[in-house]
């Protein structure tokens, strides 16, 4: 470093020197330059002075010459004198200047030349004077000769001056040369010095940089070593493991913190103490043995108990390592100590846990298993051996498990397990049969728990498999006991309808030995014919439906056949049996013998019928006889006698009503009478009912008010009338004179609500519930006073309920009562002929509007909100026409259209564009388009466009032959929206006439007509060429025989039963026939 400083000092001095010389040189150069500039300026000044002198010389010469021209001798003479003086001063000044400025050598030459000029000038002045003198004398000749002389002198003056001038030039040139040389020399010197300086700087920097780098590296290395040293010390001191260094005499030389803390000391406490204080006395001997081993082998390891400062004992693991110097001299040893108390405890716990687990599995007989999914290896507890009789346990092949599952169960079991693994569930549980080591099958219940990693990937499944054979067996035995104890017959059926189980009651009722029925086709054995002797097709059997469709079914109107060929009336119900995955695996049939019930019912019917006849017959006679008496036909009777007769007649009538009502309600509630439901309108029935009641109302001075509604109903018109008249007559009976009774109807969505309101005395709250019960008149005296049977309201309720409606009453004492009941409307389902229209528009409002519009017009509308949704769903919706918006985000209408048209499945669906754009003037650009509607849309345009695209039906004529005017009205109305003209004929003759006149496209024919029947109508039409092939729908109340069918056929002919076909079905059939697309016989579909 010192040497370097010297070098740096030398360099610095050298640099200083160089810089000074450069400065000096620079100054010299500057001086030289200044001198050169000064010399230049001097030369210029001299040249200017000489020129001035030349001019002055010219001025001195001028008067001598000018006088010859102007002759003014005196003036010129004076001028000469002045000029001469000026010139003399100029010469003197120049002389001074030269002496002052020029270098002496050159100055001398110049001064010599200048004095010559001066001399010549005097001569010239003298000669000028001579001129003037001569002129004054008038001697021009002489003046002229003097003039010539003066001119010569002037020439000399000039030349002398020129000589000075050239001297000056020479001098300047010389000076310039000298200075240029000096400057060049200086420049060279300057370059050398600067170069040397630069070189010095470079050298210095290079030297210094190199040196600096070495210095920095050296320092860093030093620091690193220091850090390392520090760290290793720290590591040692702060090591987690306890480390100590002991002298050869086993005293602590050093302990780190961990070591000391493990033993409950401060490190300083231990240093210098004997190591024995930290070792359990009982382990000292083994510690010494380890020490000896260390001395022999250099290292020893031992587990000993340590003792803490506070006397507590800990388990330690100790490693001791000998430390020797280079000469092999033993210096001491390192003692590494680890507290293993916790570890030992955990190990012990694990051992206990394993033992417990082992004992537990033995105790429960569960086979505990583990399945490592990644490696597909399995482990099974030893229950596999002692419980299931296998000769292996522990690691087992998974295939063993698969092979052991009953073949009928294996698919289910593995599928469910896979499902659990795949679905992210964790619990799996399954019951199945597992083959034991001895080949017998055990019923097992297997539970598994799936362990998954953080990502949900299944890693392992751990579970327990329990042998439940005994439990199962007991359960089955118990179930069998239960089933056998049941009084009802019970069959278990498999999917083929074969018996898998038959309880004792079933066997007994059917006269079979139960075991003989197992595996038999039960339908073929006991259900083969109906009670009327007709064959019972399996397809119609509710039990086969239960198995096939998973629906519960049954009836109480069939018979089962016994082994001996006799039959028993049964009530049975079939319930599907489902497995855990809701798959139908069979069915259970529960049945009971209802022969007795049937017999009782029959007896009751006969009794009722008999009573009806037997009671009425004498009543008829009584009523007749009384009537004749009261009519005075058999002679005069006293006034009192007449009164008595009146009483007798009134009460006979009452008795008759009572009997009628009792019979009515009895038969209705026993289900003997079913409602003859048919489409009808409420209004005419209400009008008729009011008319019927009117005489009675007039008599009671009660006003009747009617408010109808025009909804079509599905009802039995006779029964509905009965309900109206019952309620109305009640209302009239309980109305005070001058009161009003009203009958009104309100159409709801599904039903029509009727209301009969009076202004009578009302019904007490506690009676409101009762009045619909039999013989529950509000006041016991009512029966007598009002002549009611006490059965009117129960009958009303029965009728309403059989229609599927409800009846209720509201009343206010003293203000009146309101009876309300509902009757279902004729189902106004989506018309069967409807077309499906798919609306694609991104604007929800427009979608809603279009959908509502189309549905109102009887079409089925499905709306989608984007082109992609359209393409996605179009196949499943299978629309008849697509209404497509153009401006939609993502996929616009054109794109969607192209995709539709490029797919052969959808290419043929007509597409109508609905857009705010108008189509091109030349028509729409795509020939594939079926239409174009410009937004905003109106209903007529949309429906018009759609109907233009769809197969045409309008303009067709259907002749409807039906004498029931209400029904005709219902049907006609149904077709009104299709543009189909319905012509109605109420009689057979009218039908024939109209058919000939109109040649309808289709004929709907009722068979029973007032004049000639349907057969006659068909016979007549068959003769006509144009009519004999028209489609015909025979729509009648009775099922025609095969012969009648033959007779009734025209073109494509369908037979519909009024009782089982709704007007909507009829509509659909008509549409299909008109569209020539009849495919399946509808009648068959609805017959069941």
């Amino acid at each position, binding site marked *: 470093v010192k040497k370097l400083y010297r070098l740096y000092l030398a360099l610095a001095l050298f640099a200083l020197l160089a810089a000074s010389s450069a400065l000096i040189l620079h100054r010299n150069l500057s001086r030289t330059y200044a001198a050169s500039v000064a010399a230049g300026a001097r030369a210029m000044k001299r040249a200017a002075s000489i020129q001035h002198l030349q001019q002055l010389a010219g001025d001195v010469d001028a008067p001598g010459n000018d006088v010859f021209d102007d002759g003014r001798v005196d003036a010129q003479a004076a001028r000469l004198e002045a000029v001469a003086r000026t010139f003399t001063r100029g010469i003197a000044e120049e002389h001074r200047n030269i002496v002052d400025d020029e270098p002496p050598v050159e100055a001398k030459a110049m001064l010599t030349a200048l004095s010559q000029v001066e001399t010549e000038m005097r001569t010239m002045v003298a000669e000028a004077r001579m001129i003037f003198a001569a002129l004054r004398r008038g001697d021009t000749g002489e003046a002229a000769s003097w003039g010539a002389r003066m001119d010569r002198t002037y020439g000399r003056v000039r030349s002398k001056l020129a000589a000075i001038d050239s001297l000056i030039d020479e001098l300047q040139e010389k000076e310039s040369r000298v200075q240029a040389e000096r400057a060049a020399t200086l420049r060279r010197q300057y370059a050398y010095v600067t170069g040397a300086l630069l070189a010095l700087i470079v050298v210095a920097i290079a030297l210094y940089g190199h040196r600096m780098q070495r210095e920095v590296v050296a320092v860093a290395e030093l620091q690193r070593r220091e850090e390392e040293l520090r760290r290793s010390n720290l590591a040692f001191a702060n090591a987690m493991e306890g480390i100590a260094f002991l002298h050869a005499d086993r005293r602590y030389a050093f302990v780190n913190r961990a070591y000391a803390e493990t033993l409950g000391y401060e490190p300083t406490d231990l240093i210098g103490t004997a190591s024995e204080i930290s070792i359990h006395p009982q382990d000292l001997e083994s510690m010494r043995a380890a020490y000896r081993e260390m001395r022999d082998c250099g290292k020893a390891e031992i587990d000993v108990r340590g003792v803490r400062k506070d006397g507590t004992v800990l388990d330690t693991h100790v490693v001791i390592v000998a430390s020797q110097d280079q000469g092999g001299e033993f210096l001491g040893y390192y003692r590494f100590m680890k507290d293993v108390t916790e570890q030992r405890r955990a190990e012990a716990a694990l051992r206990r846990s394993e033992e417990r687990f082992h004992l537990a599995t033995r105790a429960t007989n569960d086979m505990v298993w583990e399945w490592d999914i990644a490696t597909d290896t399995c482990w099974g507890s030893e229950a596999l051996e002692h419980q299931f009789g296998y000769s292996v346990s522990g690691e087992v092949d998974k295939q063993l498990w698969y092979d052991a599952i009953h073949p009928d169960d294996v698919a289910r079991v593995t599928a469910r397990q896979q499902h659990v693994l795949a679905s992210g569930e964790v619990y799996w549980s399954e019951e199945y049969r597992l083959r034991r080591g001895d080949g017998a099958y055990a019923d097992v219940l297997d539970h598994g728990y799936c362990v998954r990693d953080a990502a949900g990937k299944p890693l392992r499944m751990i579970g327990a498999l329990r042998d439940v054979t005994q439990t199962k067996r007991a359960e089955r035995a118990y179930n069998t006991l239960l089933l056998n104890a049941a009084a009802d017959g019970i069959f278990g059926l498999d999917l083929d309808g074969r018996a898998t189980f038959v309880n004792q009651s079933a066997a007994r009722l059917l006269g079979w030995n139960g075991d003989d029925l197992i595996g038999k086709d039960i339908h073929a054995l006991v259900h083969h014919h109906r009670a009327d002797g007709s064959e019972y097709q399996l397809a119609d059997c509710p039990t086969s439906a239960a198995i096939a469709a998973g629906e519960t079914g049954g009836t109480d109107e069939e018979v089962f056949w016994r082994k001996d060929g006799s039959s028993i009336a049964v009530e049975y119900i079939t319930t599907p049996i489902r497995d855990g995955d809701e798959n139908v695996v069979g069915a259970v049939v529960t049945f009971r013998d209802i022969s007795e019930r049937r017999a009782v019912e029959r007896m009751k019917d006969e009794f009722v019928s008999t009573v009806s006849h037997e009671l009425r017959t004498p009543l008829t006679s009584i*009523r*007749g006889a009384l009537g*004749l008496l009261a*009519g005075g*036909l*058999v002679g005069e009777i006293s006034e009192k006698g007449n009164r008595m007769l009146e009483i007798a007649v009134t009460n006979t009538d009452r008795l008759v009503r009572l009997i009628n009502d009792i019979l009515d309600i009895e*038969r209705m509630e026993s289900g003997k009478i079913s409602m*003859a439901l048919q489409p009808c309108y409420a209004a005419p029935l209400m009008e008729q009912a009011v008319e019927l009641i009117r005489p009675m109302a007039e008599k009671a001075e009660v006003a009747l008010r009617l408010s109808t509604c025009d909804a079509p109903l599905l009802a039995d018109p006779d029964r509905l009338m009965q309900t109206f008249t019952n309620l109305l007559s009640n209302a009239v009976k309980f109305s005070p004179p001058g009161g009003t009774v009203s009958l009104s109807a309100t159409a709801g969505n599904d039903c029509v609500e009727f209301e009969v309101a009076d202004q009578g005395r009302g019904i007490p709250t506690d009676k409101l519930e009762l009045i619909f019960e039999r013989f529950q008149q509000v006041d016991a005296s009512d029966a007598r006073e009002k002549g009611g049977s006490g059965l009117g309201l129960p009958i009303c309720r029965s009728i309403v309920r059989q229609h599927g409606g409800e009846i209720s009453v509201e009343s206010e004492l003293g203000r009146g009562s309101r009876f309300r009941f509902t009757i279902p409307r004729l189902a106004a389902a989506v018309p069967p002929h409807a077309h499906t229209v798919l609306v694609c528009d991104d604007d929800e409002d427009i979608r809603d509007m279009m959908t509502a519009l189309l549905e109102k017009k009887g079409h089925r509308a499905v709306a989608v909100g984007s082109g992609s949704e359209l393409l996605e769903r179009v196949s499943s919706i299978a629309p008849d026409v697509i209404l497509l918006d153009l401006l939609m985000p993502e996929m616009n209408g054109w794109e969607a259209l192209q995709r539709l048209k490029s797919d052969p499945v959808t290419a043929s669906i007509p597409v109508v564009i609905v857009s705010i754009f108008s189509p091109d003037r030349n028509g729409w650009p795509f020939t594939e388009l079926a239409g174009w509607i410009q937004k905003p849309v109106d209903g007529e345009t949309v429906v018009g466009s759609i109907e233009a695209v769809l197969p045409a039906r309008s303009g067709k004529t259907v002749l409807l032959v039906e004498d029931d005017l209400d029904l005709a009205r219902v049907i006609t109305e149904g077709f009104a929206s299709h543009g189909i003209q319905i012509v109605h004929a109420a009689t057979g003759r009218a039908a024939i006439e109209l058919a000939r006149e109109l040649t309808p496209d289709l004929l709907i024919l009722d068979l029973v007509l007032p004049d000639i029947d349907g057969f006659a109508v068909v016979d007549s039409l068959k003769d006509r060429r144009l009519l004999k092939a028209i489609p015909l729908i025979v729509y009648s109340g009775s099922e025609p025989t095969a012969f009648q069918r033959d007779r009734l056929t025209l073109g494509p002919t369908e037979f519909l039963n009024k009782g089982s076909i709704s007007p909507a079905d009829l509509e659909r059939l008509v549409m299909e026939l008109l569209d020539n697309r009849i495919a399946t016989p509808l009648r068959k579909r609805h017959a069941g």
Partner: protein
Amino acid sequence: MPAKRVLIIDDEPDIREVVAMALECSSVEVIAASDGRAGLRAALEHRPDLILLDVMMPELDGPSTFELLQQSDATCAIPVIFLTAKVQATDRRKLTALGALGIIAKPFDPMRLAEEMGALAGWSP
């Protein structure tokens, strides 16, 4: 207009008598028969203008008697009105479907019997 002749077929003598008395007051000639067989014979013998036929009778009941009347050329043109205690609408429909002219429910008002009957048969009052 000649007096109408009506055959009443009913197994109940009281009813036969009441009918006879009620109708005779309206100047209708009444022939009575106590069962279906007797009724058929009487119909053939007397060729009545109308038959009132009870429905529930032992042996040959009303509908069967009606069938037999229809089968015979001599009697098939005679209009028949059923007299019945069965008042259910379905029963009524069944009877109408057989082709009878009409139904009069029992018990009837004897004073209005002739009137009702005439209305069904289309006789001028």
